[in-house]
């Protein structure tokens, strides 16, 4: 039962999940957790997925011997930036400096930290400060890398925001006709 709970948490977590975090969520003691992790490590030792202890946390990763297979997967189909990531990037580009809360308000759905860290990792977005409100949320903006990748000289080279509004109106206006 504990093992199953750990598996679910490890798969879903955006970062390697630490023993302390598990202890908080599951209200279990350290030693039962350690025992359980040891058992799980053995359970997955012969599988194609491994339970690995990385950067002070646990994570599922593919077994090293299948690396060539996984590489083949990426050769035939490159990993994708999700539509949500693209949309978030657009919002940051036009609304910067902006916070996650503002992005969420505009998109109407939760913006996961993996999505934000994906954009940060890709180098298109950077943290430019913290907002002086409770919680001191990060303030995001686009990077030089973003400009160069999108062939822009400066931010004011971005197409006019009025055109963007135009763009967002298209589906709505079209729908009104129906």
């Amino acid at each position: 039962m504990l093992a199953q709970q750990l598996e679910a948490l490890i798969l879903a977590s955006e970062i390697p999940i630490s023993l302390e975090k598990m202890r908080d969520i599951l209200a279990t003691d350290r030693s039962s957790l350690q025992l359980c992790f040891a058992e799980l490590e053995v359970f997955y030792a012969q599988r194609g997925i491994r339970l690995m202890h990385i950067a002070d946390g646990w994570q599922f990763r593919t077994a090293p011997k299948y690396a060539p297979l996984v590489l083949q997967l990426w050769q035939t189909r490159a990993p994708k930036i999700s539509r949500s990531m693209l949309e978030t990037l657009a919002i940051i580009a036009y609304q910067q400096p902006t916070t996650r809360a503002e992005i969420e308000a505009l998109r109407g759905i939760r913006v996961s930290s993996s999505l934000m860290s994906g954009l940060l990792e890709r180098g298109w977005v950077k943290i430019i400060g913290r907002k002086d409100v409770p919680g001191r949320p990060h303030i995001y903006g686009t990077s030089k890398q973003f400009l160069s990748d999108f062939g822009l000289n400066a931010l004011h080279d971005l197409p006019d925001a009025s055109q963007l509004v135009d763009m967002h109106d298209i589906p709505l206006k079209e729908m009104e006709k129906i």
Partner: protein
Amino acid sequence: MQKESFTTHSTVSNNKVIDASLETQIPDLPPVALDAFEDPLDILLQLIRKQKMDIFDIPLATLTAQYLNIIESQALLDIDVSGEYLVMASTLMQLKSRMLLPRPEIDDEGNTIDPREALVAQLLAYEQYRLIAESLNELPRMQRDVFKRCVFPESEQVERPLAEADLDDLLAAFTHVLKRMKQPARHRVMLESMSVREQMQYVLEHLQSGSRSLTDILAPTHHREAWVTTLLALLELWRQRIIQVIQNAESGSIMLLLSNQEAEEAC
């Protein structure tokens, strides 16, 4: 059956006035619990089902009175929202008056027309979709009941490519075109006003006859704004899944095609 002691006409025109005394005039109002934004059909269905009315023989006078009473008590202030309720109210009253015609309406083949028929069909269909919506809601849903892996570190031997190749390639191709055209980097005079919408139309027109390469689509344009606008138009069309962007080989040419074309070909 209760006596209708108010005229439906005045009820509708005074819809926004909360008149508590009206409630006492219909003593056997069924206990219908309403959310703030229950749809008109919901209200009717709840009234019919809670009172075990025969849906194929709806007592229109009763139902109309109860419906009006409910929308009165809801005191809907939002005109857009209350409009929908009023339309239903007038439909009900129109049906009620048609029921009262001395001679029943007759169709081309001489059969009697029940004015309630269309409403009943709609109620039944709607009721089914309500049930389906409930069963959809019970399916294990991503991010609510089930979760998947959202970061993808593999074993050290696997270096996952950084980002989505197609978008990168799309943008790379775009900058590539810019470089090839040797556009002065600081050229900022943009007198020609272009709209993304126009460019979307332009792209769609060109894709009607079949797939085109990105270079083809971008070729006729001669300045930066046009490229940016066309690129935005492409992204927007792609985002709306009206077009598809396909690249078969790494650094190969990028092909654009209409989504439905592909669907047709697949059929």
